[in-house]
């Protein structure tokens, strides 16, 4: 009996240490979901608490990073989001002229290079301006390196939704960042 208890404690601790490998990743996802640093840290810490409370449900050898991310995302909605998921508040109107209708400058020149340097500093701010439904797939796929299938599993939605939200989300992102990437309108 005592051996079983020790073994259980070791397995739990071992799981916790393995989960710690994904701390930076979870922090990144939380950072782009939450509204401030306190909320971000709260999200990450509570994710670990919830994960450890149900670590026996994790299948060894499966994708721990995705499993933890799903816990984080569910917790985010439980605590901070009372509205239903996947309701668009700022979807770009179809047919509206956007970056798809423009082409990049053939010769960007030194000014564009300077703006490109500023671009990275703007991305985090701009991501916050994008509705969560478009932001989440960008954070999971572009920052978290998840496949569409994994992102769909985490966000509990069809794979096709991930693809369309990513496409529209990137258009929104681009619209906010166009000054930094030096595109010009088609003549």
């Amino acid at each position: 009996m005592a051996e079983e208890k020790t073994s259980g404690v070791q397995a739990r601790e071992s799981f916790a240490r393995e989960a710690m490998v994904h701390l930076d990743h979870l922090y990144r996802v939380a950072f782009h979901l939450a509204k401030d640093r306190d909320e971000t840290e709260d999200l990450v810490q509570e994710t670990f608490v919830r994960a450890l409370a149900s670590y026996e449900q994790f299948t060894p050898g499966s994708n721990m990073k995705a499993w933890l991310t799903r816990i984080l995302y569910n917790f985010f909605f439980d605590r901070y989001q009372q509205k239903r998921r996947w309701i668009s508040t700022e979807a770009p109107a179809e047919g509206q002229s956007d970056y798809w209708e423009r082409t990049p400058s053939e010769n960007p020149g030194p000014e564009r290079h300077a703006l490109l340097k500023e671009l990275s500093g703007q991305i985090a701010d701009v991501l916050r301006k994008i509705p969560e439904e478009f932001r989440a797939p960008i954070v999971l796929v572009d920052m978290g390196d998840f496949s569409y299938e994994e992102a769909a599993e985490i966000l509990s939605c069809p794979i096709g939704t991930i693809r369309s939200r990513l496409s529209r989300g990137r258009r929104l992102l681009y619209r906010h960042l166009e000054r930094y990437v030096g595109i010009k309108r088609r003549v």
Partner: protein
Amino acid sequence: MNCAEARELITALVDHELHGSERSQLESHLKDCARCQSILAQEQLLKREVHAEGAKLHAPADLKEKILSDRRIFPEQAEIPRRWTSRGWLADYVLRPAVVAAVLLIVGLPSLYLLNQRSQPISLAALETYSPFLRGDFPMITAQSADEIKEQLMRAAGGNFEPMGYDLSAMNLEPVAGAVREMKGRKVLIAIYQGQGLSLICYTFLGTEEDAPANAAVFFDPGKKMNFYAFSQGGINVVFHREGGVICILASQMPMQDLLALARAHARPA
């Protein structure tokens, strides 16, 4: 296919998620559409920038401390040992009968055996090169990319085996150099990772678990069904494991629990 229909498919192509007929249809459209080619390039650039932005963000040290000291997460310990050599860790392991027996066995061995360099396991011989490599005392292969380093090391090993090639970018560690050395009659491939003031060396060679030092602590990962051997020497923490007939040794000054978690996360069962 028209440009409007191509929009979502371009996104999927950028993400390597487009296959079969959709992919061939889009590729056919792209051949004749300069505008969609530009859109593809723009979206690739945007994805790269967003990815780079994400990679710059790391959990603050105080959050890590908060989690490590949260009893809801680590209930059995008031304090997590920060170093492998810390008192807490020693207390945990030294009291185990198997460890006591191992220590007694080692102490009881003839001193001549201990002094004989030739009896030193290859894993410890490899570890002796850790500091010289980081100081730049030994010649190293440098290259433009991680793939180039891997290719050169593979060539040096005569194609018999290859370096582990772990992607440690999530820890901000990037491969910066490589080397090949003959140790105990075996070729050892050495990949040096660095980033954010941290260094890690990955040693790869053909061998068995017998190559682990006798006094290493053994951890069995039930998920991967693999043994991980952990030991410290001269302030350097080491995790040793086997993938088929290839041994991988990760050596770093990072805390042992982090190094062990890193090895377990990346190890591939044979």
